[in-house]
């Protein structure tokens, strides 16, 4: 899991004539994109050290190491930026990165696999796990609480759920 690369941002174009780029950051605090050390391209062959230079409309302006001219910056347009999962700081108990929860196997209390975690969402109330069921197209939304998800074992890549009454029956 620690070698996994996490998608944290993208270059949307050049900015100015001095080789700066317009950077779209997807981190929870946009400025945090420069806190995790060098960022990499998708296959890890190129790396850049990001120094933020300002705030733009819906983006940040930044200087990347090795990018000195506007032409260099233009050539990077559309490049997706990744950070190794191991660079993220450790979290306290009961807190998990979205990237760690996604794709975990979902099991019931009896040990039977129900599906997989497709995504984690938060619409302002609480975190919600979107679970794709085995052999079905429909997904289930489950609030991420101790009552509903008593066990989270990221090392074994599994969670055990105790779903509220009627959640699964409605869709079967």
């Amino acid at each position, binding site marked *: 899991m620690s070698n996994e690369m996490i998608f944290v941002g993208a270059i949307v174009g050049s900015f100015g004539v001095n080789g700066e780029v317009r950077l779209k950051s997807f981190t929870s605090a946009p400025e945090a994109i420069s806190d995790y050390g060098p960022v990499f391209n998708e296959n890890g062959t190129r790396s850049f050290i990001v120094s933020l230079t300002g705030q733009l409309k819906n983006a940040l302006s930044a200087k990347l190491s090795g990018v000195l001219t506007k032409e260099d910056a233009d050539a990077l347009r559309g490049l997706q930026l990744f950070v190794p999962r191991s660079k993220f700081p450790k979290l306290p108990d009961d807190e998990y990165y979205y990237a760690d929860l996604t794709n975990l196997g979902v099991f019931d209390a009896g040990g039977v696999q129900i599906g997989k975690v497709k995504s984690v969402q938060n619409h302002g109330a609480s975190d919600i796990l979107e679970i794709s069921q085995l052999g079905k197209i429909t997904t289930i939304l489950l609030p991420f609480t101790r009552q509903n998800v008593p066990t989270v074992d990221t090392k074994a890549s599994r969670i055990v759920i105790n779903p509220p*009454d009627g959640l699964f029956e409605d869709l079967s």
Partner: protein
Amino acid sequence: MSRSVWKGPFVDSYVLKKAEVSLEGGRNEVIKIWSRRSTILPQFVGLTFGVYNGRKHIPVMISEDMIGQKFGEYSPTRTYYGHGADKKAKRK
């Protein structure tokens, strides 16, 4: 213009009934509702409502700081969720 105070908060009556039944039963369940316009009342704290967004019921766990808001505010009708990146989920 805001709603007159003397009227009190608006809640669809079926939402109140369903919440009462759930509170009496004490079961862990998602209460399905279609009323996005209803106000969240103090007696709903701790319950989980499935608020319809036009396609599915989004589970909304009610906490104290949500009192006075409308259910619909927590059940978006458009589907762009962004990227996970370094976002964190807390198990409550």
